[in-house]
């Protein structure tokens, strides 16, 4: 399996993902790394049942995402990976998941924004320091904007 898109998106699965990103990257699997959603049975089931037909949706903790990717390493598949914040992606890279690029959905990640929690800034800085390309891109037609490390 290859990770075709790793995206930080506070809304997880929503209109843009369903109508644009899944087809743009031609995903066959959607993996959501979110501890809270794992416990929310109603929303998890809605996502699993209603995401366009043929797509495999897994809602897992970051550790389980890493295990899933390891277990199915040799199988065919194009993975769209989603998390609400950058922190799960830091976890995944620490767990040796090969992530080269992370896309941030939201303009709140521009370095001049002060609203971003320190943990998110720390994670992004850590990811950049460890060779992950971090870019902001909302829609597929938008030009990706590279994110420089935050000054803390």
């Amino acid at each position, binding site marked *: 399996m290859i990770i075709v898109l790793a995206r930080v998106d*506070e*809304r997880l*699965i*929503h*209109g843009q*993902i*369903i109508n644009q990103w899944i087809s743009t990257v031609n995903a066959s699997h959607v993996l959501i790394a979110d501890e809270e959603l794992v416990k929310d049975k*109603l*929303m998890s089931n*809605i*996502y699993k049942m*209603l*995401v366009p037909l043929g797509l495999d949706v897994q809602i897992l903790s970051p550790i389980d995402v890493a295990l899933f990717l390891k277990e199915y390493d040799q199988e065919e598949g194009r993975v769209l990976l989603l998390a609400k914040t950058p922190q799960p992606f830091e976890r995944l890279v620490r767990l040796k998941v090969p992530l080269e690029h992370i896309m941030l959905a939201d*303009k709140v990640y521009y370095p001049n924004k002060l609203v971003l929690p320190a943990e998110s800034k720390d994670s992004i800085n850590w990811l950049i320091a460890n060779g992950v390309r971090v870019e902001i891109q909302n829609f597929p037609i938008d030009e990706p904007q590279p994110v420089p490390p935050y000054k803390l």
Partner: protein
Amino acid sequence: MISCILISHGPLAGAMIKSVETVIGNKNRMYAVELEVGESADNFVRKLESVLRLFLQFGEVIVVSDFLLGTPFNAAVQLSEHYRFEHVTGMSAPILLAILKECDEKIGAQELCTRALNEAVNQTMDVNRFIKEMID
């Protein structure tokens, strides 16, 4: 009284009310909650929740969302864990007209949704093909 809360990405919900009212007049039963560009999902849930609580005081509520798995749809599903209301998706003029046409009848919100959806499905069609088949 059954009320309708319309929820959408951007101005569809509010515009839909205005459009439908040109056909059936103002029934004061519809309210729009719109997701603004850049608005967070959590904020939308709070907005919808406050409107929902208000309308539930007056009777049953039908939430009509624009489409499957969008942020407004997701918000309504989340709130359905805590509040009792009907939720239909695939917002369209036929669905709303059907709901409003029958909302004075003595039927519950659930039955009303079933009827409205059946009616709306029959009104979504490829018109040229329909005419051709009719002539043939």
